[in-house]
């Protein structure tokens, strides 16, 4: 009966995950997969470079602050200098009551490329480039999807009509996406000398966005291992205690 109940639970879960999209994407071997998975710092740094040089022109990274970049292995000075390369709108007006922009500080968040949704749509042919900070969590199998999307720009199959201003993409639901292929061979020049192929850049920026979606992943998993170890030990003690307590009943 116990097994049956477990089966019930599993069928429920399986059923729930079946609700994912109709498209299945090839699973990639991400460094953070599995219970021991962690992020690859060098990969995240390369991904940040791709985001800054390619994506940030249109896509916001609203929930990520420059100070968070210490997680990527940068020094405080490095982050301060990096933040200064961004123009940030000051939250409060100046003494004349005017809003003004200033060089970014570590406490600032990545500035949005457009002041509002309307402005974003106006410069992007009516499409709204979404905020990327949570993208990996906001799609089923988000990292695999994102990688498939970034590497999914191909010639459309024969006979398929692509609408004005749209591009064929094998991973995008409906296969017609407003964003034109963002990554070209050598679109960035990696500071660590890695060759900037489309696949390399897609992998790196996906890794970076996995980190922006869940910066606490490593802490979660390492804490989880300790908690599990504790709970299993505790369970052994409890079982022994229960047996001893019940020894004279049955």
């Amino acid at each position, binding site marked *: 009966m*116990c097994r049956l109940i477990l089966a019930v639970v599993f*069928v429920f879960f399986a*059923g*729930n995950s079946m609700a994912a999209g109709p498209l299945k994407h090839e699973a990639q071997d991400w460094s953070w997969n599995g219970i021991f998975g962690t992020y690859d710092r060098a990969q995240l740094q390369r991904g940040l470079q791709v985001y800054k040089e390619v994506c940030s022109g249109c896509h916001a990274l609203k*929930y990520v602050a420059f100070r968070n970049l210490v997680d990527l292995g940068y020094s405080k000075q490095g982050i301060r200098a990096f933040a200064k390369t961004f123009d940030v709108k000051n939250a409060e007006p100046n003494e004349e009551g005017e809003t003004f922009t200033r060089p970014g500080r570590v406490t600032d968040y990545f500035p949005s490329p457009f002041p509002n949704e309307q402005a974003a749509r106006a410069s992007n042919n009516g499409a709204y480039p979404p905020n990327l900070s949570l993208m990996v969590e906001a799609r089923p199998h988000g990292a695999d999807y994102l990688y498939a999307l970034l590497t999914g720009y191909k010639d459309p199959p024969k006979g398929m009509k692509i609408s004005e201003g749209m591009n064929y993409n094998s991973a995008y639901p409906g296969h017609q996406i407003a964003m034109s292929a963002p990554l070209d061979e050598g679109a960035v020049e990696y500071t660590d000398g890695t060759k900037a192929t489309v696949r390399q850049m897609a992998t790196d920026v996906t890794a970076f966005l996995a980190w922006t979606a869940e910066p606490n992943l490593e802490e*979660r998993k390492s804490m989880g291992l300790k908690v599990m170890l504790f709970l299993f030990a505790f369970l052994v003690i*409890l079982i022994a205690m229960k047996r001893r307590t019940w020894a*004279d*009943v049955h």
Partner: protein
Amino acid sequence: MEKKQFDNKLVQWVDHRLPVFSYMNAEYNEFPMPKNLNYFWNFGALATVVLVTMIVTGILLAMQYTPHTTLAFGSIERIMRDVNYGWLIRYIHANGASMFFIVVYIHIFRGLYYGSYKAPRELLWMLGVVILLLMMATAFMGYVLPWGQMSYWGAQVITDFFTAIPIIGNPLTEWLRGDFVIDNATLNRFFSLHYLLPFVIVGVVALHVIALHVHGSNNPDGIDIKEPQDTIPFNPYFTAKDSVGLGVFLIIFAFFVFFAPNYLGHPDNYIEANPLATPAHIVPEWYFLPFYAILRSITFDIFFLEAKLLGVIAMGAAVMILLIVPWLDTSKVRSARYRPLYRIFFWVLLVDCIILGIVGVKSPSDLVFPGISWFDYKTLGLIGTIYYFGHFLFLMPVLGLIETPRPLPTSISKPVISLSSGGGSAPIGAAAAKKEKA
């Protein structure tokens, strides 16, 4: 309640004026429990633990959360990123809701299997159904608070149920929302009620426990306690047994929190609510899926009643019917252990609920088996729904009348003479004999 003499002077002083210690002693220390309870009797205690966990984590989350349409989503992200261990507390709370329902559903099916709803425990059972209803309302409103796409559209669909009510439907729905649409007024009242209802649940749980302790726990044999050898005190025996169940449960809970925290959730809820775009696949959380399937399976009008209203009525009735289960079951015997026919249909009902759950995530027009064009999930859902109500309204009363129950043991500590197999109660007699010697 029996007054106990305590050694400690302060305890004595307090107990003489407010008998909390006597109460705890009588109800949780010396309280006589049937000694043949199996691990399915753990789930009430587990539900209590989850309830407390949910309230504690919920209070802490409420300290960080902002109930405003423009700020709610961002405040959740702040909890996940900036609040110390905020991610941990939120993942516990979010997965805790699922754990709560798993535990409570097992608890309910335990009751159905062993006839725990039968006299004299009818009110105990009905209070349990009230708790389930309150849990559903609380879970639904809690899911709206992050103000993601599923939050918003879930709230839209669920509040739209009320528009099915003739004449007053629309004004009632707008009154519930406090607006023409789901908006800040709705979010604020959902937050308020999401904070309130758990404490109402605590109150009903207290009544549930009081009702339980009048006649004590039912047991796998479903027979009354007849002699002192039938029982053992709650402490240490069931504190120990419940602890083992809790240990196992915590491992499962922790697995989800630490290694699959978003598995039971939906990716669309990581997209901020957008009143102008509905997600492509809108599904409720898993614990509502069977009810959602029942709602969607009614697609036809009956006389002047519209399909929409009928669907809502059917869904409500699916829970409400549990309230009258004590009177639908005509059997003289409680436990399915001694009811060969009911036992089979119990498992069929469980499978039916699972099928309804699967129907709940599927698109109604998808085919169950490719190639059989008439058999889509809508049809399967309708069959499942008819069976669900058929179980309670037809099978339960009829089975009790036509079934020949197997012979019951004379008491918990004495087996039936002719019983060869049936829940392994044979060693109990031996144990009792040994105990009498001891």
